[in-house]
């Protein structure tokens, strides 16, 4: 009580933020119940009949489910391996550039693709990869290579998704790492130089460990979305010949769920994804805390 009285205004402020999250995020959570019901608009959430785990059973028995799961997991694995480190690398490299103007210029221009909608970006990707009119085919021609119809081959789909995702969000994703790097005490760098450390040693021994907490947090957060995939990106790049490798859980939900008001079924899928995401986050946080002896981690 003494604490509350001492910091009364802070609690008051907190109360409003808490109310905000409670009303808009926790309050509607009861709607998740429709995953266990046969939701009918007219009867509302409480009036609709219970069906238990019927929708989950339907999901797991769907012959496509394992293909969708595999595609989703593989895609997210590739993204984790390539698209996650990319902004870190960019931030580290750009941080070493001496000219502040050059740094700012690169930063600003690289943010821009993030704001372009995937509808446009995917159109550009398809166009660039076109074997007859695309830039990539043109450049391949200089090296004497035959143009390959990348978008028409299912082996190329996942790499295309990963590369285009990197191109689009690289700049935006590096912002947080820049902020973290800016917080490094310059005296550390100076003393390292005096001790004879070269640039690589400085990056490896000072910069990276200093932003490790940030990296750990970003990593944990991205694990939460491991069963999602950027729906906007994939649905715009998808075409019939690449569905074997490109169809993910979200595009399936769109195709099936949108047809006939299948709210309960798609709510069940959403619940399943959230559950897996939660387990991954908890697991990752625990591991990271153990590895860093209690220093890093989200909580």
């Amino acid at each position, binding site marked *: 009580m003494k604490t509350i009285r001492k910091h009364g205004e802070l609690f008051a402020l907190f109360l409003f933020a808490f109310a905000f999250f409670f009303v808009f995020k926790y309050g509607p959570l009861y709607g998740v119940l429709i995953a266990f019901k046969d939701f009918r608009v007219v009867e509302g959430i409480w009036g609709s009949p219970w069906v238990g785990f019927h929708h989950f059973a339907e999901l797991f028995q769907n012959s496509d489910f394992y293909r969708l799961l595999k595609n989703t997991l593989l895609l997210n694995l590739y993204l984790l391996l390539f698209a996650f480190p990319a902004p870190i690398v960019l931030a580290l490299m750009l941080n070493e550039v001496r000219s502040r103007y050059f740094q700012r210029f690169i930063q600003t221009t690289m943010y821009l693709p993030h704001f372009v909608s995937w509808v446009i970006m995917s159109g550009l990707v398809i166009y660039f990869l076109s074997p007859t009119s695309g830039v990539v085919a043109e450049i391949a021609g200089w090296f004497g290579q035959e143009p390959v119809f990348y*978008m028409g081959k299912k082996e190329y789909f996942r790499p295309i998704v990963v590369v285009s995702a990197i191109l689009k969000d690289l700049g935006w994703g590096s912002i947080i790492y820049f902020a973290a790097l800016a917080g490094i005490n310059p005296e550390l760098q100076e003393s390292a130089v005096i001790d004879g450390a070269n640039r690589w040693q400085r990056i490896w021994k000072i910069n990276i460990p200093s932003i490790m907490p940030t990296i750990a947090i970003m990593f944990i957060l991205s694990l939460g979305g491991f069963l999602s995939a950027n729906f906007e990106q994939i649905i715009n790049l998808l075409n019939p010949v690449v569905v074997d490798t490109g169809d993910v859980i979200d595009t399936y939900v769109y195709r099936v769920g949108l047809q006939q008001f299948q709210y309960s079924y798609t709510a069940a899928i959403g619940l399943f994804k959230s559950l897996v995401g939660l387990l991954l986050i908890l697991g990752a946080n625990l591991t990271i805390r153990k590895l860093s002896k209690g220093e890093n981690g989200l909580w």
Partner: protein
Amino acid sequence: MLMKHKKATAAILAATVAAGLLAGCSANSNNTNTKASESPNVNASATPSETEKPAEPIEITWGIHFQAAGVVENTKVEKWLEEKYNVKIKPVKVTDASIASGEVPDIFMLGDPANVSAYQNQGVLSSIDPAMLKEKMPEYSADIEKNAKLFQTVTFDEQLWAIPMFIDLKPYDLAMLWRKDWLDKVGITKTPETLEEFEKAVYAFAQDDPDGNNKKDTYGLTGTATSTWSSGFYSLFGAFGVEPTMWHEKNGEIINGSVAPETKEALAKLRQWFADGVIDPEFITDTQDSYRKKLYNGRIGVIEEQIAKGALPESGTVTEMKSLNPDSELVFAKNPVGPGGHGSWDWGVKSNFIVFGNKVQEQPEKLEKLFEILRAQSSDEETINMTTLGEKGVHWDFATAGATSGATKFLTGFEKQEARDQDGVRLFSMGNITTQAYREKYSNPALNEAIKTYSSAPNLTDALLFSALPSDGKYKADLTSLMQKYFAQIISGEIPLEDFDKFVAEWKARGGDELTKEANEMYKAQFQK
């Protein structure tokens, strides 16, 4: 001193957050889910404009035409309707989300029996008494008599759930639009009519350099594998007498065009054309937008086009092509005749469906009023014109000055649909609810002639008039996706033609057999003559 400041700042901040919270609350509860730029903060204040009217105006929540971009409030047309029928209209945009949140308009339109079935399953529609329909809308009922089968498509559990509309002369029927200048250049004088002539022409387009630039950069035709049905190839399948995903009646049995033996023949032909470089390899990623653009850019030489867009010199596609390439010439032709006849994807006599929200059945006076307005929209010239065309002399007039019938045109400033939407034109229109008599009076005779000449109708329309089967929701989307994948791969040569048999087996196992069974049951019960 500092403490006071801290408290004051905290208080102000807290108040701001609270305001934000409350604003968010009210926005949520009044959320009408419109995607339009206007955010109608709807206050249904029913103050009648005329105080001498004895009855209170009835409030009607009206779902605007589903092709309209967004709600425009208090338009000219809305006020005209309110005055004439003593109603207060609240226009809303119908989306899946708005229905899901329970906001069902009193009257709105749906495009497909599948939609009607889905909405009815959710319990958001009112059933309609066919006897009442006949009594309140006699002119419409007389006209639709010969297409009475349409009622079957929206009758579930012995009850009628929608008012079907029909159309017989369809301006959106598909036929072929050729580059005449290319035909001339490759030495083909007669516009192709048969499948053999078609084949000769598209091969010539691909191989004989019809644009004269000494580069092999042209193709005969392309398709759009990414759209739900592959436009571009409809006419080819039609020449073999089938259309994928459509239900066909053959010898009293219902089969699906996706697995018919004729489809394999059509695929064999398309596969051959692709291998010979006649079909644009990018058909796999082409969309319905890029389809026409490829004709404009001189990359392909023939497309499937709606009659209204391509048959007359003033049609949309023709004028667009001419503006981009003044040396080009286009000619319209019928679908090629092949071993299975001729035809393209035909929507049949089906048009849209008018439905009532579930609350209407508890309000008989509202139902009366709605029928009154619908009857006027079907047979009263003034009402029809106002809601579909606008005000005569302001928005539209007859094409020939001084005429009292025939083709109409839109006046300056209102040629674009968006401009007319702003005044409320089309928002409240019901489209094909009009009587035959009206249609004859207000149609463009040249267009009607073109339709009669070029359309392949009634070939190749759905034997069940596109009704929804009970298991459609479970299987249809997946089966269509399966079909698209296999067909695209067969045509592009990625898998052998024999894999078609594998596809048929898979299609049947994954729900196709069940759907076929249901289709046959429905046909025998409702549609068999």
